[in-house]
């Protein structure tokens, strides 16, 4: 069990012949992920770590109709086309590792994914890992993630690795880790990830790692206030000491007045019944207490 990916996941790697794409294909394969095809336009016919490469997503699907997820490594300026190609071919889970993708490209593709009933995870995400099913569709170091009952959601990659490895040292594993991505706009939202975990029987406790900027954490607080879940939710917000971010004119202030700061997120989450940790160590303490 766990969420989004499992032993039935069959992965296509878009941008498989690039440095990152090829490197992480090897790591995903050695972890146990079923990577069945790769796509790089113009490179069809070759193999990367034994994985056949195709010129297009359509050709890959013709040979491997079982593909049900894609992971994208293509450079930022081509990422929109890669996402569009995956979504148009009805891939329902698209994990976008690429960082620095133009905002408007993200906006259009994430909106398109919603209309297609597909999920984009990221962009700028470390991906997803489900240890009990030996499936990772991402780039995270696997040693930090052992099998267990904590559903881990994070906007930050390395901070999630930090938390996962500390949990692991305390004998606590995770059901699934999903990296939401570090960009202002991402596909799978915090609310959606929490709601997926709330229905997963193997997940007993949730850890949400947020940070300053955006209003994702505030929307999660709104959601939990009106849809309380039975599992304990522990949260941490990074950036309490950071100065205020770039001001988006009056428009930002009008549309999101008073939101986006660490204080706003922490207060709202607390009043929604979330256990908000003050420090990274505190996260572990709260999780231990909640699952005992």
């Amino acid at each position, binding site marked *: 069990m766990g969420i989004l990916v499992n032993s039935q996941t069959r992965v296509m790697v878009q941008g498989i012949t690039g440095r990152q794409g090829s490197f992480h294909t090897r790591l995903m394969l050695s972890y146990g992920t079923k990577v069945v095809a790769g796509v790089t336009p113009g490179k069809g016919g070759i193999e990367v770590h034994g994985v056949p490469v195709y010129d297009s997503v359509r050709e890959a699907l013709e040979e491997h109709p079982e593909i049900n997820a894609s992971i994208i490594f293509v450079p930022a300026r081509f990422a929109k086309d890669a996402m569009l190609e995956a979504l148009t071919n009805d891939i329902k889970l698209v994990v976008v590792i690429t960082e620095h993708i133009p905002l408007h490209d993200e906006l259009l593709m994430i909106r398109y994914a919603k209309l297609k009933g597909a999920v984009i995870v990221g962009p700028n995400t470390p991906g997803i890992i489900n240890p009990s099913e030996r499936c990772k569709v991402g780039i995270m*170091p696997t040693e930090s993630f052992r099998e267990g009952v904590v559903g881990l959601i994070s906007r930050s990659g390395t901070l999630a690795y930090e938390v996962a490895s500390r949990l692991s040292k305390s004998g606590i594993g995770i059901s699934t880790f999903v990296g939401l991505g570090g960009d202002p706009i991402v596909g799978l939202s915090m609310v959606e990830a929490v709601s997926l975990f709330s229905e997963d029987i193997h997940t007993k406790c949730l850890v949400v790692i947020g940070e300053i900027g955006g209003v994702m954490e505030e*929307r999660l607080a709104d959601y939990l206030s009106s849809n309380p879940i039975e599992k304990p939710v522990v949260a941490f917000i990074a950036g309490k000491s950071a100065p205020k971010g770039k001001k988006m004119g009056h428009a930002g202030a009008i549309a999101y007045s008073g939101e986006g700061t660490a204080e706003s997120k922490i207060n709202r989450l607390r009043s929604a019944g979330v256990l908000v940790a003050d420090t990274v160590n505190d996260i572990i303490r709260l999780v231990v207490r909640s699952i005992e």
Partner: protein
Amino acid sequence: MLLYEYEGRRILELYDITMPKGYLASSAKEVATYVKLLGGKAFLKAQVLGTGRGKAGGVRFVSDPESGEKVARELFESEILGQRVDKILVVEPIDVASELYVGFIVNPIKCTVSLLVSPHGGVDVEELSKEKLLRIEIDPLIGLTSFIKREAFKFLNLPQSLSMEFSALLEKLYEIFNDYDCEFLEVNPLALTKDERLVVIDFRLSIDDNSLFRHPDFESEYLSRLSEKELIAHRFKFSLVELDGDVGVIGNGAGLTMATMDLIAELGMKPAFFLDIGGGASSERVCEAVKIALSYPNVKGLVINILGGITRCDEVARGIVEALKVSGTKKPMVVRLSGTNEEEGRRILESNGIKYFTNMEEAIREILKLLR
């Protein structure tokens, strides 16, 4: 990237948007000439970034060329919103009947573009109550539809004769918003003149930094605004934010680096900067990052927090050792190094006499001790 008003004007001109006539000046003498050219009366607008320029004294009315020159001198010698004034826009005065607000901003939660309009624009627009503001979400796949334009028009209570003009203006602004990859674009105020025309008096827009490759003119302008250190950071794809403390913070990943900074602040120290080296950094890149960090004269000590995933600890260690050799610094420094290839990384640090920690709290407590 926020644009200066004069940069934005060039874009609005390309779309035939009505604005007051204006000239860009970089000296008080030039200002006087332009005031004269505009018939003796003009607004002098200091070219600085951000909201609140008017309230900060950055927009001044002058009624003859001589006072124009005098006021311009004052502006050039002052700081507005914490920025030096290098350029002044000299614009013709407009007979304003009322001031409106129109803005577009990306809505990351709904995956839409929010259109914000208010019949009460001007300097206090942020304090408006909800009833005085209309917010409509635009589906970016469909775009700005006629019914949305009609709704906005009705809310603004404009004379019916302006319906077509308003609709065309909204259309052009939305086009600019998309063509220039804007994070937000707002007109404040949009003036309804006494002779019933719509004139864009002031506006602000920001181009998404990740899209600058599609806007090469602004990309070169963006690079020219960076400090020497920021330029190096940009070249190596580091994220660098300068702060006012004295403890430098280097980490990999924004979340981890921020969490490090938070711990430093909790122990009563002040971070001097935040330097995120990103993922997968090579020893060369790490070396550059440490060199940037050490080049800040106000930095008394340095905390390096690396949790290797795709970043390899041996590469990090080699980079740190190299940077220390080159700089010969004696500043206190602590390194937390864990993750991929940590044994090799720690061995490299140890054999070069650099103490390492396996846990970030210990590393930060150590720097506190060293700096006391």
